[in-house]
């Protein structure tokens, strides 16, 4: 299944003339599986953090499908999502909310999984538009997934084709409520059911050319 030459094991000759094997997947990537990360030991601290988390939603600036176009107006004066503590970050390391904006082809799904796994716990996923819910108009497409929560732990769906920016704002407010309630444990859910998610993902992604978990 692994056909990418750059990921294949290879023999390398060191400067001292010794040859040794390099296994890129093992040598380049951390192999540790994700673990469940409990919240703060003291509940009130965790609540405090959850409150802060809810007020500081950093969205990963990754438009997976046509829905990405609906997020742009949120930055404009008309909708101004910043006032709700919503901001966009260019790197998954710093973001904690991943909006799957619309249909997700298998090719994009691979990147989405990688980006999701590189975000830090706690992290949240919002499915945007009907395509993420049941495939929408791509229900019979040969390369588009139809049920996002099969592959990533989704905290919230915003239905519509496409949902308007207002719907998104409402979604954010709903998301905040979930977070404040301490129910947005998608990351831990993903870690708990890691095998199941991985199996689902690998079922549709035929050339799985990455480690099982992308740290």
């Amino acid at each position, binding site marked *: 299944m692994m056909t990418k030459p*750059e990921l294949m094991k*290879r023999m*390398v*000759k*060191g*400067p*001292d003339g*010794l040859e*040794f094997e*390099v296994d*890129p997947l093992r*040598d*380049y*990537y*951390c192999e*540790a599986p994700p673990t469940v*990360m409990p919240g703060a030991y003291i509940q009130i601290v965790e609540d405090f953090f959850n409150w802060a988390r809810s007020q500081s939603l950093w969205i990963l600036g*990754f438009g997976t499908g046509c829905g990405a176009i609906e997020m742009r107006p949120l930055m404009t004066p008309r909708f101004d999502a910043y006032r709700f503590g919503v901001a966009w970050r260019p*790197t*998954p*390391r710093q973001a904690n909310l991943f909006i799957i904006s619309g249909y997700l082809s298998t090719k994009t799904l691979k*990147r*989405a999984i*990688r*980006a999701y796994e*590189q975000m830090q716990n706690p992290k949240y996923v919002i499915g945007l538009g009907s395509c993420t819910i049941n495939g929408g108009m791509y229900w019979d497409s040969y390369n588009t997934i139809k049920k996002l929560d099969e592959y990533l732990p989704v905290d919230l769906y915003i239905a519509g084709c496409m949902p308007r920016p207002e719907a998104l704002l409402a979604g954010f407010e709903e998301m905040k409520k979930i977070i404040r309630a301490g129910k947005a444990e998608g990351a831990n859910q993903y870690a708990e059911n890691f095998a199941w998610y991985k199996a689902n993902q690998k079922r549709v992604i035929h050339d799985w*050319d*990455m480690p099982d978990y*992308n*740290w």
Partner: protein
Amino acid sequence: MNALYLIAIGLGTAFLLGLLNEQRRDLAYTLTLGALTMMSAISASWLVVFVATGAGAVDIFTAGTRPPFAINLRMGLTEATLTLLINLTGLFAAIHMGEVLLAKGRRAMAVLLIAIMALCGIVLTRDIFNLFVFFELIVIATGGLVLLSDDEHAVSAGFKYLIVSQFISILLLIGIIFGYHATGTLNIDGMAAIGAGGFALAFFLIFIAIVAELKPFPANGWALDIYESAHPGFSAVFSAATGSAALFALDKILAIGGPAWYPVATAIGIVTFVGANLLALPQTNDRRLLGYSSIAQTGLILTVIGQQDILGNQYLFIAGGLLFAHAVAKAGLFWLSDFVAQRELTAWASLKERPLLVFAFVTFAAMLSGLPPFPGFYAKWELVHALAAADRLALLGWILFGALVEAGYLFRWFGYLIKRESDEKVACTAPQVIPVAAAVLAGWALGFVWGDLSGRSNLLLVLPLLFALGFLLIEWAPAWAKNLLAIGGLSFYLLQTWQDYDPLRLIFLVIFTLGGAIIFLASFHAHGRRIGFYPSAMLMFAGLVLLIQATDSFGFFAAWELLTVGSYFLILRGKESEPHALSYIVFSLGGAFLILTAFALANAVSPAPTFEIAALATLAQPVAPWVFLLLALGFMTKTAAIGLHIWLPGAHAEAETDVSPMVSGILLKAGLYGLFVLLMSMGRQSLYGVDLVNMLLWIGALTALLGNLMAIFQEDAKRLLAYSSIGQMGYALFGLALMNHLGWLMALMFVINHYVYKSMLFLSVGGVAKRTGTRAMYRMGGLITLMPLSFIATLIGIIAMSGVPPLSGFGGRWIFYNAIMDAETRLPMVLIFLSGPIAFLYLFRLIHTIFLGQLKDEHRRIKEAPASIVLPQMIYVAILMGVALFPGLILRRVDAYISQFLPDGALNWDGLTITSQYGWWNPVAIMIVVACIFLLIFGWLLFVNRKAQKVKQFNIVFSAERPYRPETTHFAWNFFAPYKKAMGFLVQPFVTRFWGAVTDLLHTAGDLGRRLYNGNGQIYAFHFLAFVVVVFAFKAGL
């Protein structure tokens, strides 16, 4: 024994050989050797007598009557020495050519004997017609000996030689007969008593004929063909013995012409010296090159002969020094050339398998270039001083120019020898080696004798130099033992002498000795015997400590040359260092010549047998600024100031791991020391209204800027560091040229700091390069975990170097700011301000592209650098920390010392705070505060981030892709491309192009000159006649 036996034995044996059976070749050869030995013994006995008793010259009257009725010979000290030289050359040539002589039989031996005999005759005779006869004998003998060669072109060469000889002899004969007609005597002394005034034309003919025997440029094409095609054993005689005899003959007949003819001799001599050297430059055939070099050397001695009016009693010392250095070295080189199968210069690489032969070559090349401790060095010193004293500066300039060109091609040749590859094996038999060995021994012995005669310190009795040379004798020992000895020697020297010096010199001394010892720790990584390393390195260190020791100009200059030569050999050891070592030695020797000239000028205005360095302070206008300028330029070649820097990057980058820190961290300081001494003693000087110190300020600032700027565009780690050294030296020069208290303090701080962090960085990078097998930074990356100690050293090094508190570099910056507050010129500061942050750029590049970023596949199993390389780095880290915390330990004493010269602006070392008139600085407090803040925050991060997952190199966010390969993920190549766009106009290689154009010009001139020699004997005869006409016109116009 009567000197007449010299002639008699030679002639007699030659006749005797004729009587022998053709088959008894062994006997003939034994007889020949015996005769030559006898002749040598006679000369030697005379020499011993003269030296031991100090007796005057002895006249030998052949027919029992006095001249003019009979021919008389004279044997004096000079004659004894020269005949000894000639006979020994003949003897060793006979030994060397033994095989050929045995093959060709008794006739060849007889001809050789005749030649040697005739040469002795030339030296001994006081009769001018007799002189002619001997010259003709030599022509005939040469004609015979040329045929010994197995080179098929030798015949035509010999014929060309005969053609021109015919012309010469006809002119000589006419001259003699008219001279006789005018004076009524054939005795040279008799003629001299009458003077040439009455028969100027006749004397001219005699003069020009004898000059022609010296093969003056450009009328010398025939001689070159002989050199190229004759058997090298004979070429040695032709060069060493014939040349010496002809020079002596010329000296003799000049007594007739008197001082009026000196300028003619000088002119011919200098034109020959410069011209032949220039033409030697493009040569590729070794023997032809040696021929050109012989002619050039003869020209130089001819110049000296022409200058005898100002040389006084030094005349023989100088002429003799040059002559013997030339004769011994040239004979040795010709003999050596027989071991090399091919005639290309590059073919000499086959010698490198034999260290002793390499040593022989080094000896000869050093003798020819006038390097210490050989006679040529002393002679050059006195000659230059005499010329400067007589204000013959143009001549002085031409001589030094020619010498530089000569050193250029000799060392280029040496570079080929050491660095080129050759499949040929060296084939040499004992009889062939003996003459070479004898020449080597003679070279060193002459060095000793001339040192003894010089009336200055005999360099071969100077302890540090002897210590360095001693390593030659223990080359068989393993490297670690020699290393221990080297470290011990350096440390011992420091222990023994440290009380003798003021704080300033002590700092330099400590860097030179202890600093060297620390770097030598890294040398423990080398295995085997490491032949050639220790003598070279120790020669450099000997030069360095002697430099500090020196109080007079001679000692200073000798030390300067020693350290230059030593470091040249060190640099040449690098892998690809051949061209860089060459440009290093050429620039260094050029700088040394400037220094020499400056000392000579200074000595000329304040005459004293030894010129104390301190006396520079007493120089006045108009010579003082010139001395200042020359010295400053000379020293700046060593500190690689901009314009004179092009040798440095390659030289430092290509050097071995432990050599780079030596030549960068230590050697550059020699130039700074010179500048320190210069500015301390001479202060401000101005030339045509230009303040020279101000010029230095600008040069320093420009060097700092451009050195740093060029450093940031390097892909090669060591080259980057090398350019950075240029920049750092610029800083130091700038500080010195500020000419205020703090400026000097800053320069000194730079001396210390630069030694520490540049040595550390070079070692660190060298260790990495050793492990990774490359110096290209973009091929490295991610080595931090594999080579953590090297990383730490680099990190500390770059923090210190960039001047970021709390490490010691900041002290330098702080002093710098305080220093410029007092400065009179403000504009150069702009350049310095700019170069500071630029340093940051290349430092980051260095540490990032090597240690951070992506680890390459082939480096995954790399180990930390060898312990011996890491250990000194750790010592440096400790030193840096120490200096950072307690700069006062060192600087305080220097501060007080500088106050002698520049009392204003001293720092106040009260408690832990250092206060200047503008600000203050408390290194301990800074360190503590920074450490506390850092630890506090670090502790906090450790607390909140205790569960961090350690990930691997490809666990990076990559726009949701995964990286392809480490090579394409590591951002390292062309690191500062935008800067090149914006500032690239400043780093165009103008200087390189300039020097390239200069060398091209010299080569082109040489090539154009070569067209004169089209190989046609008739044309050569034309040359000769044209030369006669030109010299005549010159003399008439004089």
